[in-house]
């Protein structure tokens, strides 16, 4: 059964004012357990609004959201517990750090869950390690850390709640390539080790292509598609048409196709592309 499901999900901002805007328009989607979903879409396409529905931060104007088959708004009083099961890391999460040590900040979520002290300690150390923060950093103030370390500390703060679904809104925005790769590989590692479901909002098609098993595309408040990467990038013209890009290697293959070299495949990783090209060359007797 799908872990996350939305039915006719619609959200209208500022209804009744001149600023009224439908941010999410009748979205139906089912996300399977254990999936690594890349969420893409133009700025203002409604992706940030959509993900805030999955942990009950926003209540739909109409439509329903199900977690594990249960309507999350059925019991309004316990919406807080939904947030422990669906962790959401906002954009620039380092701006939410507030404790005087990194340790306490990571422990904040688990403490709100009411876990016993030894379990909290275990989780803090485990998650700090999972995001690549060393023991000595735990006792430092979060405000002394580098940008990348702050970001990882903030992500650890949500991971430590061990949610079944972890949603990250552009976790690599504003970081240098090294910091970006570090965070993404840590997230991938966490996905592999825990088997949880991950939703990763990103503007980088390269990142999405490299990590995601499914891609969700939002366009003008509507769900454009939710499918395997090859199927999504196969709709090359439509994706380009809505102002998004495709991975560089997909573009290369598209240009090859236009020049008459059709390799009949939707390619989105460099590794696979290399194999295809090698095969083709072999077929033609060039190597």
């Amino acid at each position, binding site marked *: 059964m799908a872990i996350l499901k939305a039915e006719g999900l619609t959200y209208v901002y500022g209804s009744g*004012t*001149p600023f009224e805007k439908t941010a999410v328009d009748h979205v139906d989607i089912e996300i399977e357990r254990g999936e690594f979903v890349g969420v893409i879409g133009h700025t203002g396409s409604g992706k940030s609004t959509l993900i805030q529905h999955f942990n009950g931060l926003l209540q739909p104007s109409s439509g329903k959201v199900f977690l594990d088959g249960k309507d999350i708004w059925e019991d309004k009083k316990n919406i807080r517990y939904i*947030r422990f099961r669906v962790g959401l890391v*906002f954009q620039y999460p380092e*701006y939410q750090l507030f404790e005087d040590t990194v340790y306490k900040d990571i422990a904040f979520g688990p403490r*709100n869950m009411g876990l016993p002290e030894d379990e909290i300690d275990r989780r803090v150390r485990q998650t700090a390690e999972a995001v690549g923060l060393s023991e000595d950093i735990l006792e430092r103030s979060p405000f002394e850390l580098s940008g990348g370390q702050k970001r990882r500390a903030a992500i650890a703060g*949500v991971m430590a*709640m061990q949610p079944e679904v972890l949603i990250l809104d552009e976790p690599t925005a504003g970081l240098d390539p090294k910091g970006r790769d570090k965070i993404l590989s840590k997230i991938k590692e966490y996905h592999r080790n825990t088997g949880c479901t991950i939703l990763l909002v990103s503007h980088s098609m390269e990142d999405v292509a490299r990590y995601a098993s499914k891609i969700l595309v939002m366009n003008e408040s509507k769900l454009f598609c939710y499918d395997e990467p090859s199927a999504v990038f196969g709709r090359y013209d439509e994706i380009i048409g809505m102002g998004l890009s495709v991975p560089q290697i997909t573009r290369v293959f598209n240009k090859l196709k236009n020049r008459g070299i059709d390799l009949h495949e939707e390619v989105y990783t460099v590794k696979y592309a290399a194999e295809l090209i090698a095969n083709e060359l072999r077929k033609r007797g060039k190597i």
Partner: protein
Amino acid sequence: MLRDITLGQYFPGTSFVHRLDPRTKIIITAAFIATLFIGSNPVCLEAGAVFCAAAVIVSRIPVKMILKSLKPIIMILAVTSLLNLFLINSGIPIFEWKFIKITYTGLRTSIFMVVRIALLVAGTSLLTYTTSPILLTDAIERLMSPLAKIKFPVHDLAMMMTIALRFVPTLIEETDKIMSAQKARGVDMDGGRIADKVKAVIPIIIPLFISAVRRAGELATAMECRCYRGGEGRTKMRQLKFGVSDVLAILFSLYFMAAVILVNIFL
């Protein structure tokens, strides 16, 4: 909750009221407030209410928005009316039970005060609804400019007000974001005892302060980069101009309010 704050909230439009010079609107609002406070006769308040209602209709601001501006002061209105109702003991009693005594004067004062405060807030809200914050501070700067002669830092004050108003929505948005982020980490905002509520505020206040200080620093740098050096020799991109409609609006309003005050004195 935060979206209920209507302070400095501009409601764009093209009505007659929107198009008036902001200085005109400030002068009229000031006169309106003065009339409300000088007027001790119910007739004055009735006239004020009519004037306010007329302005609202002309401005085409939905009545819902005006009512929304009154929402934050409901508590103040309630307390004022109750205090007046129970503490004024003179006049003809209309209800008496043990130590509670309600008199006709008390009832009258109570209603009078509530209407006066409500009109005051509705009138000033109309000013901010129909005037963008930037125009408003421009106008205040111009109206206060004679004070510069006595070395009063008019420009600096206006700039501070502009910046403060400009950052109200930004800070509200920021607070919203931080609140969401902390809610996602399980902060319980709604329930609990007072002590728990106070504790829930810390994870929001601290990041908000840090971000406000950071923003202030960034803004100062950006202003320096554009060679900001105070108001000396500074020209305006948008020149304020009084038009015929401004003169008419001011004359009409001042006549109206003068008449109301005269009626108040002689009645």
